């Protein structure tokens, strides 16, 4: 490493830290400053505020418990036992992951809501005049959370079990431990880092969850929805205090759960081969398991199917019937032919693409500085890349709205709110942890000798980047970029606070279609979003998978 290169690296690192701090950390500090300047005590004394805080926390904890209760046993079932259809069903169990949050919520609305398919079926069977339930409140939120978040526990636990060393279980057995004792004393403790990782992911996601509480909460308020409501009411000082409170809870939860992850015990000792799945002995039980698996897969697939079905229903043709009487492609045709429908689609596509490209570029620079040059600012860079993941999207959006809602050039504040730049900026900030984590991990596995070999063969900096680093990092870039693109494309939580009419994204159009009772149009948008997400993730996996 020459003095010149290290010197340029330091300058680049300082610049990157400055830019990241400006768009990630600075808005949070401004929120904190504004919050503390207001009448904090009045907010702290308010019962409603404490209630929202408490609701946020217990919903998040309950979501973790529910997700673990579903995901962990499923992971054991699919990783440890063999039965017909295990491979296909095991993959289908991850289906909820391809539904962007808002799309999942409206699918639940169409399926289990008051006028959804299930309610109509029950009414038809029992001859009821009104829906027997309302999809509202904490129960409804938890239902959606359990459906969408058990996937984290399921995937993490399966990966952990697959890396477990069979000889350790055999050692336990040879020491006289029975099956349950082995699970309790050996398997679960070894899985602790994995379970803690899943718990962390679930907790942060549930705490930041916005779509489900927004649509199903009703009078039940969590902090994210409370913040948006307070801001819409024009009570900015209170909104700032609430935002600060949510930030503190998120940081505390993150710190607490990171402690639980501990060291990578599993990785350190997991050297042998994982136990092979055992064929279920009893034929009857085997068939029963397979049947239950298919039943569960159908249940998981119902929201997707519902969305597809509703998207084929022309507006105004489905009133009281249990099933819609007519199906056409009119809603999809409208997406392309009506300029006002096409626009949000194009908006979301270009904004997500720009934000993803910028986040991938930032991650590449960060990877080079942190891993290759071991810049002195490596830690701050990694921290700033992680922060937007720890902090809920609502907080990021409020921070950006506050910081870039006024012009004070000396304080680095410019009016971006109301311009076409604010949403791509918000998506960029939200994408940073996704691309950052993937690219840093990729960079750490990249043999530095590859770049050196290129260098000794006469390749300059750009040739090394384009001919060696980027192609070799392609799996990481595709994985991080795909995830970032999908998240930005389906974004609702920051869009709802920052969008302008001209740059409204898909999620906002879905919401206004719902308000206008154009459920078919809303569902069509949802289907498109789901399809593009699945395609982007699939392409990411394909591009990442070759060679």
């Amino acid at each position: 490493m020459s003095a010149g290169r290290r010197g340029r690296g330091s300058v680049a690192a300082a610049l990157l830290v400055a830019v990241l701090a400006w768009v990630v950390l600075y808005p949070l500090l401004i929120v904190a400053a504004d919050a503390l300047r207001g009448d904090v005590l009045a907010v702290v004394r308010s019962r409603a505020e404490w209630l929202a805080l408490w609701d946020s926390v217990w919903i998040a904890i309950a979501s973790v418990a529910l997700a673990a209760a579903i995901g962990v046993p499923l992971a054991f079932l699919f990783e440890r036992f063999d039965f017909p259809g295990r491979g296909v069903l095991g993959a289908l169990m991850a289906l909820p992951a391809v539904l962007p949050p808002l799309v999942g919520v409206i699918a639940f609305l169409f399926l289990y809501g008051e006028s959804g398919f299930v309610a109509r079926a029950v009414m038809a069977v029992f001859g009821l005049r009104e829906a027997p339930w309302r999809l509202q409140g904490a129960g409804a939120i938890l239902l959606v959370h359990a459906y969408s978040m058990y996937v984290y526990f399921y995937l993490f636990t399966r990966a952990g079990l697959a890396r477990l060393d069979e000889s350790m279980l055999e050692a336990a057995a040879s020491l006289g431990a029975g099956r349950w004792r082995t699970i309790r004393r050996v398997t679960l403790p070894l899985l602790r880092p994995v379970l803690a990782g899943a718990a962390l992911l679930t907790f942060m996601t549930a705490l930041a969850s916005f779509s489900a509480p927004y649509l199903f909460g009703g009078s039940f308020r969590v902090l994210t929805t409370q913040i948006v409501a307070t801001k819409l009411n024009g009570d900015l000082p209170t909104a700032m205090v609430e935002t600060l409170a949510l930030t503190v809870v998120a940081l505390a939860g993150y710190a607490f759960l990171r402690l639980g992850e501990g060291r990578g015990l599993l990785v350190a000792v997991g050297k042998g081969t994982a136990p092979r799945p055992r064929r279920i002995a009893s034929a009857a039980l085997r068939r029963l398991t397979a049947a239950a698996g298919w039943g569960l897969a159908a249940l998981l697939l119902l929201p997707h199917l519902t969305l597809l079905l509703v998207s084929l229903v022309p507006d105004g043709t489905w009133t009281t019937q249990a099933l819609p009487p007519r199906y056409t492609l009119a809603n999809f045709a409208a997406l392309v032919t009506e300029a006002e429908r096409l626009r949000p689609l194009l908006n979301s596509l270009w904004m997500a693409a720009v934000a993803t490209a910028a986040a991938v570029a930032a991650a590449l620079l960060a990877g080079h500085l942190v891993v290759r040059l071991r810049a002195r600012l490596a830690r701050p860079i990694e921290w700033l890349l992680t922060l937007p993941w720890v902090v809920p999207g609502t907080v990021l959006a409020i921070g950006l709205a506050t910081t870039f809602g006024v012009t004070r050039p000396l304080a680095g504040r410019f009016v971006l709110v109301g311009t076409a730049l604010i949403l791509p900026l918000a998506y960029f900030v939200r994408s940073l942890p996704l691309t950052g984590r993937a690219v840093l991990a990729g960079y750490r596995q990249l043999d530095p000798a590859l770049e050196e070999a290129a260098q000794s063969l006469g390749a300059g900096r750009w040739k090394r980047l384009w001919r060696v680093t980027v192609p070799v990092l392609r799996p990481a870039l595709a994985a991080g970029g795909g995830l970032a693109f999908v998240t930005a494309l389906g974004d609702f939580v920051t869009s709802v606070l920052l969008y302008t009419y001209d740059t409204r994204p898909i999620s906002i159009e879905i919401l206004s279609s719902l308000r206008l009772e154009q459920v078919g149009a809303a569902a069509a948008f949802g289907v498109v979003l789901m399809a593009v997400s699945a395609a982007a993730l699939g392409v990411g996996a394909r591009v990442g998978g070759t060679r």
Partner: protein
Amino acid sequence: MSGGPFLSIQGLGKTFADRPAVADLTLEVGRGEVLALLGPSGSGKTTTLRLLAGFETPDTGRIVVAGEDVTDVRPEARRFGMVFQHYALFPHLDVGANVAFGLAFRGDVQARRVAEVLAMVDLAGYERRAVGELSGGQQQRVALARSLAPEPRVLLLDEPLSNLDPSLRERTRKELRRAITRVGITTVFVTHEQEEAFDLGDRVAVLHAGRLEQVGTPDDLYDAPATPFVARFIGRVNVLPGERAGGAPGSVALVRPEALRFTGDASAPFAGTVTERRFVGDRAYFVVEAADGTSFEVLAPHGAAVVGDTVRAVVENVLFREQGAR
């Protein structure tokens, strides 16, 4: 060395976090000569190679090649070819594209050069193969071809055989030797294996704790070590009390096993019981344990003694004497 030094290393020094990795290293390599950098791990041999390649910048000293000072020349402009320990073949490119990577020209000229270099390492026609499909030895030859393709001024090899199966090493070593000779390129390579250094290197530079201990032909190093370290590091050596080998009290004598001779003379200074016999051809190494618990090795005709015999030995030739405790 013929025609004066082609590559000259002058007073090279590099310190990492207060620990000197290379200190005041001066070496000269003739045109077409093959120099081995031999030393234990942490001796600074790899750092020296990386300084030569330009991946590290020296704190002191100069590197001159063909009269040009390249100390501050960036690696991509230095025209030194390097073969990495784990080859560092680009996994996303096929064999041909790997070899062509460093070539400035394109099209037919490029294809011809690639074919030519691949033929040189006995891999003619391998252009479209994926590098992942190749065996370790083939990967190494691709790496060699890739580094030779742009006609570098100096070839650098980092532990060229360490990544290969022991059974493959000898053959690969011969192939490597042949390829280097055919090209006639000035070569510096790093190894921690004496056999490899002696077999491939015209001269061998022994490094220890960042310093050059001695540079010379394998014969020089074995017969006339310049320092106690070289004496101990090259070949096998016994460390014996000096006063019993004709030296001053308190000194130690370094003696090769073949410089000890069994004798029936009861006044011979070294005595003990044979505890081990290891065959090497018609001779054997005898491990002799003395009454005081120390032991030494004697190389003698295999029938000279059997395990359990009480034997005596005299010193015929002391390699090196030094003051201080054993």
